């Protein structure tokens, strides 16, 4: 199959990426807006283009449990979920990462009940940042397919052996159609070697896996896990380079800085909203305003140094969070502030909470954020640090 252009949704792009990666086992449970992924994968099994065992599990907890089981005998596994499902399998996320099982999972970012919502925001995956999974957030359907491929290679790297979550904004990205290039199978086979791991049960070398550790050893295992995640950073950068060389598309590693070098203010975004923000930056630059955009691709491991390098010397930094940690602030904001504090950077930072439960974020909303940052840069009056943008009602201050 040679590379070709197709017009597909984000979900379909993920399914095509998963097929190219040749997983041995797919175990997934349907949930809006991920359903298209599993439907396409089962169609691919039916038409013979995907030679995987497709397991119809009866819940998301079982999906992760089965994926870990398959991984424990050395099989390459893929699964997908969203919001409620991600949280139902929450203990399984820790289990996979602590067990060093490099499962790859697509997550369709969707708001978490209550209230019920099938629409997108980042509350689901951001609430699981501590679960030990590598987390990437993609901007468009091409990146969704490409990162599904990179995910297996990074996760299965012998220095990493850590599970990998590929996040797509629910509906906005999962269900909108774009033209993408599907790589050739032979090139993917060359890019993605067979899955090998010392952490597996085999008949040649019987193992006891998933054991308990006493207080005498637990910290050492956790340290190992943390170091594996830190060691993933150079692997991520190297994989981005290798992917670019093989397929002609580079994603610039852990962060993608757009016109940050000479910017006075920088807005940090995660996920598909970055595309809209790029358009706003272009308009404002045309008006002579020195604004910059930092797309955070990975939330874990967190690119502390790259973040510091791109905001050093700026007058103000804004963080767009499609999330709120109630009683505090947006989760991305917390991570940004910590990275900046660790670098001794005392620059004013502002959290813009937007797009919760599928609320639209328009170019005007993003322009509002940049205008606010520019006002601070120009020595304007101090403003709220955490602000909900584009509320449908007035609120008393």
């Amino acid at each position, binding site marked *: 199959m040679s590379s070709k252009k197709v017009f597909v949704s984000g979900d379909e792009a993920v399914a095509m990426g998963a097929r190219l990666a040749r997983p041995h086992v797919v175990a997934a449970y349907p949930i809006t807006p991920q359903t298209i992924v599993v439907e396409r994968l089962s169609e691919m099994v039916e038409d013979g283009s995907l030679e995987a065992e497709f397991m119809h599990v009866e819940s998301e907890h079982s999906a992760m449990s089965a994926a870990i089981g398959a991984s424990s005998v050395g099989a390459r596994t893929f699964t997908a979920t969203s919001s409620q499902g991600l949280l139902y399998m929450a203990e399984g996320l820790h289990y996979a990462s*602590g*067990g*060093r099982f490099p499962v790859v999972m697509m997550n369709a970012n969707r708001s978490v009940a209550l209230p019920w919502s099938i629409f997108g925001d980042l509350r689901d995956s951001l609430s699981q940042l501590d679960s030990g999974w590598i987390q990437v957030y993609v901007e468009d359907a091409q990146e969704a397919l490409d990162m599904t491929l990179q995910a297996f290679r990074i996760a299965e790297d012998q220095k990493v*052996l850590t599970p990998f979550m590929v996040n797509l904004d629910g509906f906005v990205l999962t269900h909108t159609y774009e033209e993408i290039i599907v790589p050739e199978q032979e090139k993917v086979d060359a890019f993605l070697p067979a899955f090998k791991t*010392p*952490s*597996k049960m085999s008949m040649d*070398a*019987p*193992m*006891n*896996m*998933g*054991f*308990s*550790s006493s207080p005498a*050893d637990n910290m*050492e*295992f956790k*340290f*190992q*896990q943390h*170091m594996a995640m830190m060691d993933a950073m150079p692997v991520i950068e190297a994989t981005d380079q290798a992917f670019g060389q093989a397929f002609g598309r580079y994603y610039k590693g852990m962060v993608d800085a757009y016109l940050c070098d000479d910017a006075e203010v920088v807005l940090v975004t995660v996920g598909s909203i970055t595309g809209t923000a790029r358009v706003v930056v272009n308009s404002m630059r045309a008006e002579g305003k020195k604004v910059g955009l930092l797309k955070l691709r990975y939330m874990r491991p967190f690119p502390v140094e790259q973040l510091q390098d791109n905001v050093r010397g700026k007058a103000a930094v804004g963080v767009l969070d499609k999330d709120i940690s109630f009683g505090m602030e947006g989760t991305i904001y917390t991570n940004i502030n910590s990275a900046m504090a660790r670098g001794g950077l005392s620059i004013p930072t502002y959290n813009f909470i937007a797009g919760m439960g599928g609320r639209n974020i328009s170019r005007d909303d993003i322009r509002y954020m940049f205008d606010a940052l520019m006002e601070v840069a120009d020595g304007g009056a101090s403003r709220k640090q955490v602000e909900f943008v584009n509320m449908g009602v007035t609120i008393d201050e």
Partner: protein
Amino acid sequence: MNRPKHILHKRPQHIDEYPVGPTFRAGYLPDKNAGWRTFRPVIDQEACVNCMMCYLVCPDGTIYKTDEGLYVDYDFCKGCGVCAHQCHVEAIKMVKEEHDEQ
């Protein structure tokens, strides 16, 4: 080897000596269970009729077959007494352990 033996285990000194994640070789026993016993089973080889009942019902699998008869692995026997209780011909006696007085 039909069953694992007690092994001397050296604790890791450097982080790289730990296994990658919670995975370790099957059948590895740095710790004996002998210290659990108050009574130890003693098999009277003359009285034994080789019915294998004791071998079958030991929860710890410590009774093993040899050409000379059935013997107990005292490294791992916990002294539960099921073997003696189930023996049809009373060929096993539970004998008090001789421990050093503190």
